[in-house]
């Protein structure tokens, strides 16, 4: 196609400047743990936080599991992670602030450059900002606080509602689930604790921003969301990190309880810098007539391994995952979703779109398990992959296990490149090849982007355009 058309490839002027690439020195930090992980470090974290005894016990048990478990070998290449070099706990400031003015200047500037206070003023029900290991700022609109909505950092949640935390903590994802869940349970710090009482509809999104500032940092946030009967909530997380030559590790655990008739949407926009290992375990337990929606956008990081899953445990429960991954040079996005159907009349759908370019690799890895009692259950999986050049790679690894016959399970996957005929059609109407390619890519992910809150949808299209600049040869 390019042989006949005039060639025009625009370049972003700020090509080399990674937008979120600045960082501040860590000299003013209130606490930095020595690199490496040992029982002493785990005890130190727990001591600094002044935690109850049962939590320390949980952490130590998890640490034992972590050391005993071997590295997973079935997914992405994790051999370069050096657990001894990572700082497991970094505290930039000693307390969480309620008003933006009180946040330390460097931290404030970082988040201001990311546009966070503006976003809060306009569109959000509540905000948390996590800087390395600790949440530094938090707020919740009064309307929701009055209705009994709890939106705290996980540490505050444990302090103020110990019984609630004890009842739900580590129940859906026990420490023994996998090596990184064990690591998180042993070293967790920060994250969000959300409780929405019966029948309360939180119409605006609750949002947390995660930021890794230090080099060789490990961020292990722990999020617990409980949406009680008939309630609904939408939680958004956004992640960024600055440029460093050596990698950081982000290993989160997210547990969500969706009670009878409740609804929860969890949206992730992940744009870590391209040397962060992002190894996350996310799972939701959905009860009768409940609904869980995972919206998962992965653009950054060196390696992402993330499979948001839902256990449909009550009659008529519904689950949905919308996943998008973009892998450029040196990146491997190993994402997917798991649907475990345990009750009758449950339904789920998983839509995954991936784009590989410049030698990047995207993988879809999924599991559909329909148990013997899940009669009249339905599942649909659609995976579409777009390859933008000959060096990139795309894999699809779905597994479907069905233990009863009254089901309808479908799976479809396609892998393709941008079609010559599609390009020709657009170019014959006077659109340059580059613009045409962008249009096709944006169209490819359109149905997922539409699920995002508006300001994110605009940002997402812009990010895709940015990633596509100059990639037409």
């Amino acid at each position, binding site marked *: 196609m390019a042989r006949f058309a005039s060639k025009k490839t625009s370049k972003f002027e700020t090509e080399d400047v990674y937008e979120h690439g600045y960082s501040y020195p860590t000299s003013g930090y209130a606490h930095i743990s020595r690199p490496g992980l040992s029982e002493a470090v785990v005890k130190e974290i727990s001591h600094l936080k002044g935690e109850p005894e049962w939590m320390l016990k949980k952490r130590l048990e998890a640490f034992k599991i972590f050391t005993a478990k071997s590295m997973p070998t079935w997914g992405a290449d994790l051999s370069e992670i050096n657990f001894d070099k990572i700082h497991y706990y970094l505290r930039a400031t000693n307390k969480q602030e309620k008003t933006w003015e009180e946040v330390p200047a460097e931290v404030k500037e970082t988040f201001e450059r990311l546009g966070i206070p503006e976003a809060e003023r306009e569109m959000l029900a509540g905000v948390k900002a996590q800087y390395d290991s600790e949440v530094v700022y938090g707020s919740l609109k009064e309307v929701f606080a009055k209705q009994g909505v709890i939106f705290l950092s996980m540490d505050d949640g444990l302090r103020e509602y110990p019984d609630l935390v004890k009842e739900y903590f580590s129940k859906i994802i026990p420490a023994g689930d996998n090596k990184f869940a064990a690591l998180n349970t042993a070293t967790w710090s920060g994250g969000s604790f959300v409780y929405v009482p019966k029948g309360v509809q939180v119409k605006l999104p609750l949002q947390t921003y995660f930021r890794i500032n230090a080099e060789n940092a490990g961020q292990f946030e722990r999020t617990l969301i409980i949406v009680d009967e008939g309630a609904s909530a939408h939680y958004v997380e956004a992640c960024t990190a600055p440029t460093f030559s050596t990698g950081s590790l982000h290993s989160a655990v997210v547990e969500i309880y969706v009670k009878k008739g409740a609804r929860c949407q969890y949206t992730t926009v992940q744009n870590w810098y391209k040397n962060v290992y992002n190894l996350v375990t996310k799972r939701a337990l959905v009860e009768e007539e409940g609904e869980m929606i995972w919206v998962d956008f992965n653009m950054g990081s060196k390696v992402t391994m993330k499979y948001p899953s839902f256990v449909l445990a009550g009659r008529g429960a519904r689950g949905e995952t919308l996943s998008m991954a973009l892998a450029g040079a040196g990146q491997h996005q190993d994402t997917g979703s798991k649907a475990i159907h345990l009750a009758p009349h449950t339904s789920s759908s998983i839509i995954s779109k991936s784009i590989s370019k410049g030698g990047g690799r995207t993988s879809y890895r999924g599991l559909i398990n329909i148990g013997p009692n899940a009669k009249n259950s339905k599942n649909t999986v659609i995976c579409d992959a777009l390859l933008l050049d000959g060096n990139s790679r795309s894999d699809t690894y*779905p597994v479907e296990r069905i233990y009863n016959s009254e*089901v309808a399970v*479908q799976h479809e*996957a396609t892998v393709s490149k941008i079609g010559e005929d599609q390009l020709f059609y657009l170019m014959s109407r006077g659109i340059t090849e580059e613009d045409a390619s962008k249009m096709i890519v944006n169209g490819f992910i359109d149905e997922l982007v539409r699920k995002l809150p508006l300001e994110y949808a605009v940002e997402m299209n812009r990010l895709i355009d940015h990633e596509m600049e100059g990639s037409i040869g």
Partner: protein
Amino acid sequence: MKRIEVFRDQLKSIAIKEPGEYLVILKEAGAEVDIRGAFKIDQKNKIEVSVVIHHQAPNTRANTTLRGVAGDSAHISLKGKIIIDHACGNSNSFLTERVLLLSNQAHAECVPDLEIHTDDVKCSHAASITRIPEAHLFYLMSRGLSRSEAEKLIVEGFLS
């Protein structure tokens, strides 16, 4: 593992009759292959069919269809994998896995994998696991067939 190689401009039809592991390699440009397998099991039987279609040259085509019917407490497992190597442009490969379950104790597992290392390809797979739709049975029964006869006819049609 049974190994089948397809060479330059060769067109081959492969019928998979026995469960087991198969490796089909499209060795040279222009190779084309059509793979079909259909299985019906019942009682407590358990079978596993695994087919790897490996495209090692450009301009290759493959079309793979695996079908299975499981009755009683049988367990059927269909595993297919398409691998397209780097610089094997202009290749098309399709993989379809269909399973019909006849009883509630029957189990099925479908694993349709793709590993694609180049962009100039058309590649897709589809898998489905269902029981016989009640409407289909009703249609045949309303024309005087018994339920078991109707089921038999539908299974026959499904596998042919």
